[in-house]
């Protein structure tokens, strides 16, 4: 079974530029998550989708971050414009359902450096 795929793996940009990350979840998984992991901290949930609807985006900085999940499968996360404090690893995860008991499966992450 293929795992969660993410691209690119690494990205370096200047502040005020824009950037996009892509995620392909495990086939059949209804729920998709985007997390931000700053160095030395645990992952922080940015947004959670169930199929193509948003379940929780309370911690997404909506003035600069946006995300979509077209057709309930792949997802993209965009930052525009980027700030220095956006430097982090962006993790995508997926799970079969939405219950708190469901295991989340994580992709390898995209490491973003903003200069």
């Amino acid at each position, binding site marked *: 079974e293929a795992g969660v795929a993410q691209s690119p793996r690494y990205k370096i940009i200047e502040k005020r530029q824009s950037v996009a990350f892509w995620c392909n979840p495990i086939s059949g998984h209804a729920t998709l998550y985007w997390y931000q992991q700053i160095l030395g901290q645990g*992952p922080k949930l940015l947004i959670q989708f169930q199929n193509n609807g948003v379940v929780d985006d309370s911690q997404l900085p909506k003035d600069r971050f946006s995300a979509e999940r077209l057709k309930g499968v792949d997802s993209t996360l965009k930052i525009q414009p980027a700030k220095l404090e956006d430097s982090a690893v962006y993790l995508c*995860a997926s799970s079969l359902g939405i*219950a*708190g008991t469901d295991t989340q499966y*994580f992709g390898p*992450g995209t490491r973003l450096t903003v200069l």
Partner: protein
Amino acid sequence: AQSVTQLDSQVPVFEEAPVELRCNYSSSVSVYLFWYVQYPNQGLQLLLKYLSGSTLVKGINGFEAEFNKSQTSFHLRKPSVHISDTAEYFCAVSDDYKLSFGAGTTVTVRA
């Protein structure tokens, strides 16, 4: 909102020695508890989880954890570590649908 405290940020340990990683959570309702491991330049991988039932949970790679409701703790243990256990370990708590992570514990195993 749930919160998780991992009491040790770094744990150095010698190969074949035991290790314990401490985790406390705050909650007033039923929760589900998880331990994830993150190897360098990789995503997180589930080690084990507690949903209900027996308070001693066994996971992959010889790890186990014990749920203690009265102390709101979920400590992770391994009786004998290997070099390959060098990684970052995250404790997480879930309520109805949202997973909240601790800051992580870096385990460095030395020969």
